[in-house]
Structure formats: structure tokens, C-alpha cells
């Protein structure tokens, strides 16, 4: 059934329309004035001011590889993150650790580890899935480049962003 929405009955003052216009002008002028006097709080001026200091602990920025206290790349090239990554941003080429090495027990290390930052959606699945606590989402968010190649973070870059992670489980160390 069609419903007829009744029009509100306007008083002659409302029908004159001018008082409403003046009231509107007053409102906009108030905003203009407050802005001129610097009373209005406005947006952060981004490149000069940044909110880095107030980023929350759980912020999900660029994924990065980390080293442990011994300086070893924690990744064992199990390729779980490569498998889970929804946009398939990760590409890993595993390599073998020679038996003479101190960490020969680990067997594998990533020879190449690329994350295509054009593809990455900062979902944090890689961090979640990693059995080695080797990949973390850091707080870098301004990831830019002029070419596509520049946007692919290779192993060095990832380690540079990641740095050393302290206080994580060190399961590959020799038992004391």
C-alpha cells in the first residue's frame, strides 16, 4: 500500500526561507572564524607530523624477517608462510645448511626470500603461521618505490627492517 508522507506544515517564517539562510550562514561563518583563529583541530600534517610514536603494539605494518640473539636468520625455509599467504606475495628459495655449521641441526635456510609489497595485504597470516617466530609484521607503513622491482623486498631488505628479535623461544640452540 502506498504511503503518503505528509509534508510538514511550515510557518510563514519558515516559508520565507531567509531566516534559515541567515542561520546557515552564521553556522558556516562560525566554522570559518574558528579555523582562522586556530581553534579548530584539524588533520595531522602527514609528512611533517607522524603518528609513529602512538602506533599501537599490535600494529600490522610491513612483514620482515628477524635474527635471533646469535645473529642467525631465524627462518628455516619451511615455506609455510609462502603457502598461507593469501595474495601469494612471498617467494622462498630454500638452501641447505652445511653439516659443519654450528646450526647444522636446522638443515635448511632461505637462500632467497622475497616479499612483493605490491601484493602484500598486511594480513599477518605469515606471522601467525610461522613455527619459528621468524617473520613479524613491523611498524613500517610508508613503503614506496618508483618501479615494481623496487617494491619487492628481498632477504637483505627484510632483515634490515626486521632487525634482531630478543626474548623469543630459542629452540635450535644447544641444550645446556
Amino acid at each position, binding site marked *: 500500500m502506498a504511503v503518503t508522507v505528509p509534508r510538514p506544515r511550515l510557518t510563514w517564517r519558515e516559508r520565507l526561507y531567509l531566516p534559515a*539562510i541567515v542561520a*546557515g*550562514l552564521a*553556522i*558556516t*561563518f562560525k*566554522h*570559518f572564524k*574558528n*579555523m*582562522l583563529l586556530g581553534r*579548530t583541530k*584539524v*588533520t595531522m600534517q602527514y609528512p611533517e607530523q607522524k603518528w609513529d610514536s602512538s602506533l599501537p603494539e599490535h600494529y600490522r605494518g610491513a612483514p620482515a624477517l628477524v635474527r635471533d640473539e646469535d645473529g642467525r636468520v631465524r627462518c628455516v625455509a619451511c615455506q609455510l608462510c609462502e603457502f598461507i599467504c593469501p595474495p601469494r606475495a612471498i617467494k622462498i628459495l630454500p638452501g641447505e645448511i652445511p653439516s659443519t655449521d654450528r646450526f647444522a641441526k636446522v638443515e635448511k635456510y632461505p637462500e632467497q626470500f622475497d616479499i612483493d609489497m605490491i601484493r602484500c595485504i598486511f594480513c599477518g597470516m605469515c606471522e601467525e603461521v610461522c613455527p619459528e617466530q621468524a617473520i613479524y609484521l613491523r611498524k613500517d607503513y610508508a613503503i614506496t618505490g618508483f618501479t615494481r622491482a623496487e617494491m619487492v623486498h628481498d632477504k637483505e631488505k627484510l632483515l634490515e627492517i626486521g632487525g634482531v628479535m630478543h626474548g623469543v623461544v630459542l629452540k635450535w640452540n644447544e641444550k645446556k
Partner: protein
Amino acid sequence: MDSFFIITSLLKIVGILFVVILPMVSYVVYAERRVSAFIQDRLGPNRVGPAGLFQPIADIFKLLLKEDFTPRAANTFYYWLAPCLAVMPAIITIAVVPFGSTLFGVPMVIADVNVGILFVFAIASLGVYGIVIGGWASNSKYPFLGGIRSSAQMLSYELSLGLSVIPVFMLVGNLRLTSVVRYQIEHGWFIAPFVGDWINPWKWLLTIPMIVSFLVFMIAMFAETNRLPFDLPEAEQELAGGYHTEYSSMKFALYFLGEYAAMITGSAVIVTLFFGGWHFPGIPDGSHGWIFGLINIAVFFTKVTIVILFFMWIRWTLPRFRYDQLMRLGWLFFFEIALVNIFLVAAILPYIPKV
């Protein structure tokens, strides 16, 4: 028609066009963006140069470097012609507006014709061709609707525009814009007659129809220059940009230029008709020294700027009208108000002392 006249005229034309109108247009665009931002609690363009003051230059380069795209289905000749048609009238109109008293004895008006205000209306009414043809030649639905809307809108509001200024000319006695200014110098601005025998109560009674006339004229001017709340030809939300949807690069810039130039000339006409033109109480005219001539010009453009700022203020305050509301407003209210206003002035006129 001696060479002195020709040279000074050329100087005035070049000066007004390239030193005043074109820079003014670009900075009015900048001001519009800043004012709108301030009203909406934003900052607006503040990056290019100090406080963003070089933004217009960056804009020009951006527009020049953009791809100039012509839709395949468009009617190419008219598609190219239309933006030019949109700019020309707006700029030509300024020719009859006196923008200053005299400078070194040269009157500061390009063409002091005896049909001044009619000239303004006639040329302004040609401005609709740019929009209509642009909308039609684009061969696309939204621009076409914009063009249709604009032709109907301009025709309707030209009536109230013309009728609303008749009281002014009933007082002045001829259509020359310089005489309008002269009259206001001797008798006070039409909006606020503080000069001359300003204690005469009849003159104050006269300001009532004058203010009505001013309001109607200004509102009709909004409609003529396609400014919000009457920007139906380009209503972004309904028509995706209206008549210039299909335009890009410099052709779009020309439309933009035309719109803002029309706004500037419109403000100049308003200032001339109702706010005493280049006159400011206490400041003598250019015959007392060239410095006063310059001050007169400065006063005029200051007033124009204030009116333009008011235009912007309105734009960022009011929502757009619906199309039928627009038509009803034009034909049923402003037209009648302007008409009654003429009779009102005619009734008061006999009591006004002659010069």
C-alpha cells in the same frame, strides 16, 4: 578616434585581462578551495609555496599536461568551439564596467557605452551557448541534460535579472554604468546612502526597494553564473559534472575559467550597481592626483573581492535546489518581486529631490 585613444584602450584591455582578470581567476579558485576548506574544518591546499599560494600555478601546469581527450562520438567542431564560447562573454562583459575613476586623465573604463547594463545582459546571455553546445556536442547523456537545464535556467533568471535593476536606472536616468557610479557618489550608495543629504527620510525609505532589488539581482546572478545553490547544469551528484563531464585538460580549464570570470564580472556589476563602484566616502577621484586614481581602482577590486567571498560563503552554506523548485522560484517569486519593486520605486520617486 585618435591614436591616444586607441593606445590607452589597448593598454586598459591588456591590463584588465592579463593583470587583473586572469590572475584573479586563478586566485579566486585558490581562495574558493581555501574558504571551502575552512568552512568545512579542513585546511585546503597549503603545500605549494607559502600557505599554498603557488597552487594556481601548479594547477595550470597540471591542466596543461593532462591528456586532451575527445570522445569519438562527439561532434568535434562544436566540441572544440564550446569552451571558447563559454569564456568569451564573461570576459567581454567587463569592458563596460568602470573599474576606477581616472588615471592621468584617462577614464578607467574600456568602453563607456550608453547602453551599459543592457550590454552586460546581452553578452552574458550569450554565455549560455558555451554550455548548451558543450552539452550537446559531447554526445553523452549527462552533459546533454546539463545543457538543457542550463538553457532553461538562464532564460528564466535573465528576466528577474533584468527587472531587478530597473529601479536603479529609474533613479539614475540613463543606462550608462559610469553615470550609475556618478549618481551614487552624489547621492550615496544605493544600499547605504550615507552621502549627500542623507537625513532625507525618503531616501532611507528608498533603500528598502533598493535592498530588495539588490537581493533579487544577486540571487539571479547566482543562477546566471551557475553557482550553488543554482548549479544544476553541473550538479556533480546528479549529472556527474554536467555539461563538462566529457571535457578534459585545457578545454575543461577554459570552462572553469569562464565560470570564474563570469563570477568576477558578475561581482563587478553588483559592486557598480549597488555599492558605489570605485567610490569610497572620503576618497577623492583620480582628478586629484594619480595616487587617488590607483586607490580608486584598489577600492573597486577590494569590493569585488568581498562580493566574491560572499558568493563562496553562500556556496558552501546552502544545498542545491531541486530543478522544479528552481523554476518555481524564478518564475513565481523573483519575477513578481522584481516587478512589484519597480512600482514601489516609482511611487517613492517623486519625493526624491533631483540633482
